[in-house]
């Protein structure tokens, strides 16, 4: 027998969930949320925050993973925070999600045209040009970003920044 604490790591099939969180626009509110995730051992895959039309509230989109019990705990724990107004698992229903990436890609002589062709196919925008690079803005669901990155990789990605996912429920549903 080993030590006194036998902590069994639960095996589960992690499912991705996209949570929309409305939170008071107060100092420390974001830290409470991220602290909750680290303190209780939950995952954050991406996190995106900005004020809403009502400037006293922020909208936070959080992508996390876990089985149904973990997701239930995450939602309950978030709701327990005094600053959190509302939590919705948007991935439960119909929703639209988008992410943006800025990709600085090598574009020299023979590859310059190829990069532009790729932009065209994926409806990306070139937002900055230098003699040896293009910086491309790509928007879409995460799968599209992944596809673009995969195709640009062989050409040579110099730098990349991503916003993290934002999401909204379809049709009449509002937070």
């Amino acid at each position, binding site marked *: 027998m080993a030590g006194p604490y036998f902590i069994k790591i639960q095996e589960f099939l992690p499912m991705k969930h996209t949570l929309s969180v409305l939170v008071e626009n107060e100092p420390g509110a974001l830290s409470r949320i991220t602290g909750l995730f680290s303190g209780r051992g939950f995952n954050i895959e991406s996190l995106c925050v900005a004020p809403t039309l009502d400037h006293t509230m922020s909208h936070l989109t959080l992508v996390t993973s876990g089985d149904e019990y973990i997701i239930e705990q995450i939602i309950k*724990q978030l709701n327990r925070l005094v600053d959190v107004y509302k939590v919705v698992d948007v991935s439960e229903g119909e929703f639209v999600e988008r992410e943006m990436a800025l990709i600085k890609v090598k574009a020299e002589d023979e590859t310059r045209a190829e990069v532009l062709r790729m932009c065209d196919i994926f409806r990306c925008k070139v937002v900055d040009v230098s003699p040896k690079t293009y910086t491309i803005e790509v928007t879409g669901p995460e799968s599209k970003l992944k596809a673009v990155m995969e195709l640009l990789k062989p050409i040579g990605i110099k730098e990349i920044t991503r916003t993290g996912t934002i999401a909204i429920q379809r049709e009449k549903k509002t937070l």
Partner: protein
Amino acid sequence: MTKLPGKQMVVEALKREGVDVVFGFPGGAIIDVYDAMEKDGNIKHVLVRHEQGAAHAADGYARATGKVGVCIATSGPGATNTVTGIATAYMDSIPMVVFTGQVPTSLIGNDAFQEVDIVGITRPCTKHNYLVKDVHKLPTILKEAFYIAGSGRPGPVLIDLPKDIQNQVAEFDYPDKIKLRSYNPVVEPHTRQIERAFKLIEKSKQPIIYAGGGVIIANAHKELRKLAEAIYAPVTMTLMGLGGFPGTHEQSLGMLGMHGTYCANMAMANTDLIIAVGARFDDRVTGKIEAFAPNASIIHIDIDPTSIQKNVKVDVPIVGDCRRALKKLVKVIEEDGRPPEVWKEKYQPWWDQIRAWNKRHPLTYKTEPGVIKPQYVIEKLYELTKGKAIVTTEVGQNQMWTAQFYKFDEPRTLLTSGGLGTMGYGFPAAIGAQMAFPDKLVIDVAGDGSIQMNIQEMATAMEQKLPVKIIILNNQFLGMVRQWQELFYDRRYAATEFSVTPDFVKLAEAYGAKGFRATKPEEVEDTLKKGLETDCLTIMEFAIAREEGVFPMVPAGKATTEMLLV
């Protein structure tokens, strides 16, 4: 409307919230609030000897009264010294407001003298906290803090007060009531869920009520008793739930879990329906979770939705105030109209089984001639006080023996650090309880290890003329850890033996208190009698069997039916 400086706003808020006593320790960054309190003169301040003592004393006051406890400390080390006390209160859901001084706003972030980010440090162990950056917001923050601390699932709230804010002046518009759009605890349980719960109770052949600290916090002890008596169900309690149902009641099975009674753990393992009230299926209660109550359906009443379905799957979740939920449930049972005898008959085979378990392995200990058994001390203490005292404990064996052998009949009579397990909690908590109830007998049951963690508060008790009684069960070991080492680490007593312990009788005398010692079993009763009769702070030291263990014991990670017995 009146204009007030921040420091005076704090004092006014304390008065309006009905705070009659605060526990604290001053310093440069909080000196202004102290000055305002001194000038006002309406708030009793208890000067502790270490800020941890202030936090525990405020906690003890809150547990004994049900009111919000208040403590004050300065910035930096003063603030960090309260953290253990805050975390203790957080784990046991105790309403508390903590004020800390902070360096002036212009210096925040500059690594100024005695600066620490206490709001950042306490974020994971407070229910909520505030750094006040605008004096105009202070009145609302003060109101919110008391409201948040005391409502829903209670907990500690910290307000960090920069020195300049304490002196800036603004309108003091103190709200009578407050509504927060992002904080609305559900108190009223769903009627349909109550009906579903009743259906499960009707179907059950072997139910058990599992009551936790929530019963005490919600003042639901009367309703709990009504429920238990209405359906004649056995009741077991967590450490935090002791006193929520009378320990001497024929339906009480005593405490369950790691050091629970044999019959309580066996009943939990064999039940077909757990009615959980204000409890959270903590690992010390469930043991190995896969083996926990395998055949049971679960009804879970709790005000905090996160407690439900956290560790075990629940069939009927009931979110709401325990008292209201129990009231509704009792009403449904009354409307059903079956008299208690019908239930009694229905559960007779179950009760026969429970009584057989209890007969097989009752709570007991072996006596040895010439050696004081700690359980005997607690039994005698119970006899002599007739169970009427407020008992606090430290953490470890002293705590478990008290939980097992002192029968708590009333709520708020056992004050103990359950969740965090804080050694050094009991004595300052006793000071807080004695401040609230000057005429009651307040006793701290301690070990020789834990009493030394906050022994400096003896000066506080003397200064306030508090007749707290300290019982030290002295085995010159850190007994609980030693017990684990004996059982699971081949008796390698790594760092658990004390080769030097102060002479506690002389120590008591050094503080101007009284001290008594018993070294033989026949001296126990007399020592207790002498010690309990004094009108001042008193230490009663008992030289107990050095290697006595706490039994039953469920080894950590084992099923609760795998108990080691006496």
